[in-house]
């Protein structure tokens, strides 16, 4: 607690990033430090950052110090420590979880465990404090594509998910074959603006009737086959048109399935989360669709879409308000499914 504000510190070690954040009252970001973006000219505890990618063991102390330093709070003023012990890569998760447990013990602070995807969804509450459950969340990133119903702050239900590639992954792979570079999503977004989405139509895959699941590997293969065929015939390829056509075939499926999910669930609010949430065509078409059927739409800003600790802090803040804490026996859950996971992460009493 500082200046009347409740303070949450959270730690996140997804496979790529080492991240620590300090959040006030569940919505004011005092610091949101991500290892790949750390200022290498600053000095923490007499040590100049030498951040190595995915070296969580090496990075954690520095990122932790940087987060407190930037937030201008002391560890004593923090009210609880949040961490996401899953799902994710076990070898990466265990370091963030070990660190969080040790900090919680050493500083005598309560520990709160949240589900990584729950954190992605809750990121929206940081910028939209008026948002309350129940709502439907469309989580689209490089690693996930899910339609998740958030019934209460700590009660989630999966309505649909991908059976092969995640949407963000399809973007990245298509960007690669088109020679557009990395990261693929923003590149395709950019290039597609100059293209005609109807010039090279690609098949939209909806799977069975009424299914809310996704499948994007077929679209990816469609693009690759198209490029192959054109090359063999000696025809040139209009990259902008292909990018636009591909993008639209993915976005249409996402938008249509989101609408179906809203209809099937009866929810009137839709929340977007994950890296692909920054795609301009997706935002535009979702806005239009939601306007048409009177759904409230919530979209987070880009920094909150990719993996970060502020979203973990937000989820932790809301969980502790419900009195749900973890104990110091907390283990990692690399394969944690969202349905069974939430109960598992809550406190079991030990002496």
């Amino acid at each position, binding site marked *: 607690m500082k200046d009347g504000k409740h303070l949450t510190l959270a730690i996140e070690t997804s496979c*790529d990033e080492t991240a620590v954040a300090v959040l006030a009252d569940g919505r004011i970001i005092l610091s949101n430090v991500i290892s790949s973006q750390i200022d290498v000219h600053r000095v923490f505890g007499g040590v100049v950052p030498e951040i190595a990618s995915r070296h969580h063991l090496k990075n954690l102390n520095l990122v932790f110090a940087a987060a407190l330093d930037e937030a201008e709070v002391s560890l004593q003023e923090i009210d609880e420590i949040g961490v996401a012990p899953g799902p994710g890569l076990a070898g990466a998760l*265990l370091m963030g979880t070990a660190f969080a447990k040790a900090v919680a013990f050493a500083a005598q602070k309560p520990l709160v465990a949240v589900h990584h995807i729950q954190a992605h969804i809750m990121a929206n509450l940081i910028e939209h404090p008026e948002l309350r459950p129940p709502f439907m969340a469309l989580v689209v990133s490089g690693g996930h594509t899910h339609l998740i119903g958030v019934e209460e702050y700590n009660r989630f239900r999966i309505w649909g998910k991908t059976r*092969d590639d995640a949407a963000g992954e399809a973007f990245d792979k298509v960007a690669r074959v088109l020679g557009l570079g990395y990261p693929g999503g923003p590149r395709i977004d950019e290039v597609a603006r100059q293209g005609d989405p109807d010039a090279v139509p690609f098949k939209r895959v909806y799977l069975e009737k009424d299914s809310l699941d996704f499948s994007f590997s077929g679209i990816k293969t469609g693009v690759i086959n198209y490029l192959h065929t054109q090359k063999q015939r000696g025809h040139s390829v209009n990259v902008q048109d292909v990018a636009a056509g591909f993008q639209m075939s993915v976005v249409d499926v996402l938008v249509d399935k989101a609408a179906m999910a809203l209809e099937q669930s009866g929810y009137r609010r839709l929340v977007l989360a994950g890296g692909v949430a920054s795609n301009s065509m997706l935002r535009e078409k979702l806005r239009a669709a939601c306007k048409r059927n009177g759904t409230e739409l919530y979209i987070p800003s880009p920094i909150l879409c990719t993996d970060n600790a502020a979203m973990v802090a937000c989820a932790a803040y809301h969980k502790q308000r419900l009195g749900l804490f973890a104990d110091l026996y907390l283990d990692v859950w690399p394969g944690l499914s969202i349905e069974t996971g939430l109960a598992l992460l809550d406190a079991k009493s030990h002496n």
Partner: protein
Amino acid sequence: MTRMKKTHLLKTEEETRKLGGQLACAARPGDVIALVGDLGVGKTTLAKAIAAALGITEDVTSPTFTLLCQYETGRLPLYHFDVYRVHEEDELFEIGFQEYLNGEGLCVIEWADLVKALLPPETLWVHLTWDATGTERICTVE
């Protein structure tokens, strides 16, 4: 034991499935299968075929972003890696890659040529390429 090189021509997805089945049947705990080939040539399709033949019922999704997807419902635990996004082998080591290679499951690694030095000498290398017409796949196993 001398390693033999065997070439298959995969015309259809059915033939890919058959090959996946053969690889799965021969797999023992601790085995490593390295999949090498360009984008779209069918590494993930082959990985899925291996998974199905091991009796894995869950959807096998691409691990490009997560680096690893693991499945415990088959005859052997399956650790399906995609190391495309890894820049340095040491990064993989730091997040526990070695422990899986030393484990009791089957490791199937896409883009394995990027991390060759980390893999054990008994690794089975599967190379997938397009044939001259661009319609069929050639697969060599060594």
